[in-house]
């Protein structure tokens, strides 16, 4: 199968080079993202939205 691109590559056995890899940088980045999401949500829902005039109550 070597003649082609990696057409069948996903089916190949790749255990040879799967040394354990810990994506700690990714975890850090995504942790930051999570914090931003939560803070922005709390601001926009509880302060911006619920603080506006003419809240629809019925």
């Amino acid at each position, binding site marked *: 199968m*070597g*003649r082609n691109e990696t057409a069948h*590559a996903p089916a190949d056995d790749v255990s040879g080079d799967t040394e354990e890899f810990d994506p700690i940088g990714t975890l850090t980045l995504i942790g930051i993202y999570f914090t931003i999401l939560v803070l922005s949500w709390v601001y926009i829902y509880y302060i911006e939205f619920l603080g506006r005039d003419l809240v629809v109550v019925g």
Partner: protein
Amino acid sequence: MSEAIEGDRTFVDKFPEEARIVRAALLSSFLALVIGAVLGIIQTLHRTDVARIIPSTDYYTVLTAHGVFMVISFTIFFLVGLFTWAVTRSLDRPLIDIRITWTWYAIMAVGMTMTGVSILAGFTDAIDMSADVLFTFYAPLQAHPMFYAGLAVFIVGSWIAGADYFRTWLAWKRENPGERIPLQTFMVLMTMAMWYIASSAVAASVLIFLLPWSLGLIDQVNPTLTRTLFWFFGHPVVYFWLMPAYLLWYTVLPKIAGGRLFSDPLARVVFVLFLLLSTPVGIHHQYLDPGIAEGFKFISMTNTMFLLLPSLLTAFTVVASVEYGARQRGGTGLLGWLTDLPWRKPEFTGMMLAGLMFAAGGFSGMVNAGMNINYMIHNTIWVPGHFHLTVGTAVALTFMAATYWIWPQISNKPIYSRAVGLFQVVLWFIGMALMSNAMHAQGIMGVPRRTAEPEYSGFEYATMFGGYEELNIQIAIGGTLLFVSTILFIGNLVLTMGNPKVSGLAETLPPALSGPDDAPRVLDNLRLWVAIAVTLVVLAYALPLAAIINRGGLLGPGVGTYPVWLAPGLDALANAATPPLAGDAWASLVEVVR
């Protein structure tokens, strides 16, 4: 990597026929992108009152064309091109019959031309044709029949494209019994399965209601029903735009970063989740519709929120794959590895910036999904602010960036200027950051979307993160940068096409760190997932649709017909204070036309 030796033949060397159709599809897509960008800048400068070169009544012709060309032709033509490449490449076999392939391409092109002409004809009074109904075509505003007919033809073309992929996969399966479906093909098949489910509703709405109605065969339609059928399709279509970008992020981006996909099984899980959850959520576009019970809205919201999961998982998997690449290149530290990435490659930087904007769009998307907070932003310019981050950047910028990588593969021509490419993708990012940010801010102030003149005579907007005028300037500058960026992209591509062919451009895609053997076999069971998806759709829609039909009848409670193509805009304006053209007056007009 060791694949270097095997990869000396490019896609076009191996599959010249398929490469030709991929190029054709991509070029159709980019043609729509350029037209869309011209319209985009016109409307940006118009609504911000920087330059008004068209009468405001024509604004809606521009907007309809911008919407349709961008999100129907630009995205979907790119999709079929990319999917044709992905299926052929990952199965390593040609499509079963290239004539069928050209047939669907032709059908799609004809359909889009019909729709496009019917929209653009709105600019001239010489032709009695117009489709100023925007890409959502809500009845009872009525477009020229050719608008609906073209859409139906286009969708049928895309169905045949899907069948082409499925049949090619089945042929491959017979040749390779017992093998796992290659990841890219898996993604294509899942996406097309979702597309069949989603587009069935809009096809039904067009063929059963809107087209016969525009031809005068039925008198009226039920606005809530056709609206609901539109959004049955209208939300999953969002994922139809997004899935090709995901395919690129999962399978191409890691390679460009110098690494490999972190987890093949998770990628499969993500696509299964999209198939299952994309459709039973459309009612979240109707949170503020009368005539739909609050309970249905709540169910739709719950499904929508869970639809966040596959995207959040994708964020992790894709970033981890990139991090792996950086570490392979010698990157160290908690975040220091970020500097070890190939930021000079336009395909890399473009896709990464697209992903970053998608993360930002994730936030405004959460707000859009939150049922009651919809009161704050529904139909304000916040919404275009949101989807220019998602489809307008996460998708569009990924497509442009990927083109810098894929075009040499399908043409054997190196990119004319990679430096300009890099500049172009960064420019898009900056332009969109400005435009979208200001749109979000204006939206919170209550500035509506889809309007030629958002300044009103009776009141002024409150200030919020900068005044209304300031934000307009930001939008105008951002839109201009986006326009320039698009022109640079197209110019670069056209010059690339003039380049001589060379050899040695071949690229390969490495297998995943955690390969498909780690993925449970059940993931590849397409029948099962489709069955569950259909069940979920029935559960989500049977009751709401029944309730809507029960309330208003199949053809609606008494509702008139408002053809935009027979009553030129100015008449309607003149009629503003008097009762509008009623259905019977319209019927007699139809008689005259016949």
